């Protein structure tokens, strides 16, 4: 049994409900215990663009609480992951900001020593659990399914640990499930999720590029990063974008953990597929019906 401190992030309770369900189910299969961080708050990412100090202070509040348990802090959402790790890095590297942050935390009666280890959930799946263990848990191999892994930005940029130009870790997990991986160049391109509310046209053009690239390279299904922002942006918007032939995109989109759950023989409901907007049930029909 591996134990971690778990920081879900705000979006997991709303747009990421399906992903959260699947993470819980998959972690049970893989013998991982995620202990939700007590009294966590926003990671500070919403304020990052116009008030960096506030963002860093918000992030370190969570880290200050997490530090006491001495476990690795695991974050599924890429934005939260980057922001917590970014705040930690700034706290360590920039003494001037560190002093200001320390003063702000002191006002709330907290103290951060700078010892938290922040990790991505995909990192835990691949490095702590391992592809061979994941492979051994597979009950329904996803044979002949062409899966395009979408990484988004912050899972590997700017802190890694995966390669920031051409990440591969999700592909390795997908391969261990028995599926075929699709090579496509834009797998770590930004989906524009940060500005979904304000710049709808810009976001749709960015999404078009990604979806078109997947279609062009023969992807049948997108296995997205565990970030609810990237996932929802792809899921909810694609039906409003037209592809080269003038038809609306109908690319099935699942989160990586949902795909893992299906391969582990869990039912669609147990991995939260009922919350997905894109036509995923149809795409995964032949795999979900095997055990039923």
């Amino acid at each position, binding site marked *: 049994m591996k134990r971690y401190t778990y920081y879900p992030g*705000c*979006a997991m*309770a*709303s*747009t990421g*409900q399906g992903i959260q369900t699947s993470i819980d189910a998959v972690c049970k299969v893989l013998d991982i215990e995620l202990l939700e961080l007590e009294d*966590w*708050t*926003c990671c500070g990412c*919403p*304020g*990052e*663009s*116009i*008030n*960096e*100090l*506030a963002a*860093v*202070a*918000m992030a370190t*509040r969570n880290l200050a609480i997490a530090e006491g348990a001495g476990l690795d802090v695991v974050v599924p959402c890429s934005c939260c992951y980057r922001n917590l790790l970014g705040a930690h890095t*700034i706290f360590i590297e*920039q003494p*001037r*900001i560190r*002093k*200001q942050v320390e*003063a*702000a*935390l*002191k*006002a*709330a*009666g*907290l103290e951060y020593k700078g010892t938290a280890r922040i990790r991505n959930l995909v990192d835990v799946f691949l490095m702590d659990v391992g592809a061979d263990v994941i492979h051994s848990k597979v009950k329904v191999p996803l044979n002949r399914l062409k899966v395009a892994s979408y990484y988004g*930005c912050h899972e590997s*940029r*700017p802190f890694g640990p995966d390669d*920031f*130009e051409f990440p591969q870790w999700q592909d390795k997990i997908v391969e261990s499930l028995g599926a075929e991986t699709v090579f496509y160049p834009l797998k770590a*391109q*930004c989906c*524009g*999720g*940060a*500005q979904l*509310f*304000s*710049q*709808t046209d*810009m976001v749709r053009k*960015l999404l078009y590029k990604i979806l078109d690239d997947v279609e062009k390279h023969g992807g049948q299904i997108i296995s997205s990063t565990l970030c609810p922002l990237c996932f*929802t942006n792809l899921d*909810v*918007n694609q*039906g*409003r974008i037209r592809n080269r032939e003038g038809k609306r995109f109908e690319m099935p989109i699942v989160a990586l953990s949902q795909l893992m759950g299906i391969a582990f023989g869990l039912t669609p409901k147990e991995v939260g597929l009922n*919350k997905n*907007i894109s036509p995923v049930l149809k795409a995964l029909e032949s795999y979900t019906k095997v055990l039923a």
Partner: protein
Amino acid sequence: MSTTIRGAKTFVDEVASEPGGEKINECIQCGVCSGSCTTVEWWEFPPRKIIAMIRAGKRKEVLSSNSAFNCVTCYLCTVRCPRGVKPAQLMHAVEAIAEREGYRPKTPTLKLFRSLRNSMNRGRIWELGMALRFYFFDNIWLGVRNVPLAWALLRRGLMPLTPPKKVNGEKQVVAIMKKVEEIQRAGGKI
């Protein structure tokens, strides 16, 4: 008024003293940031040019352009920059100055960021409340356009109608934000 009084703070110093802008003087104007930028076609001035303009002291032009606000923070520029300038962070510094001083670039994003920042004070984010506040107060037409999108989420219960439960940390968050504001008003002094 482009004359600089000796000892007075120039625009480039101002940006360099803002969190994120520290490395601006390391830039060698190679243009990798502009070439890598995901959204550069929407920028009034590409990132390399923004850095050049900041150094040339074009304060008003930089702060009133929509450029920095179109940054989606994808960090392609940051990981590729040969000098470690961190252009994405630099754009945040520009955004912060523009927001603080009440510039009005032609983009709805500034107000979105403001709503987002204010929504942090509750402790956890309530997406629907944040979106409604942003659309009703700042951008009603954009809100109307996005109704089908919101409906798709609401129908599946993916956008809770009620705010998330209050957390004990809320008081701490309020205290932290108050102190941050205090520090910033004092110009970084504690």
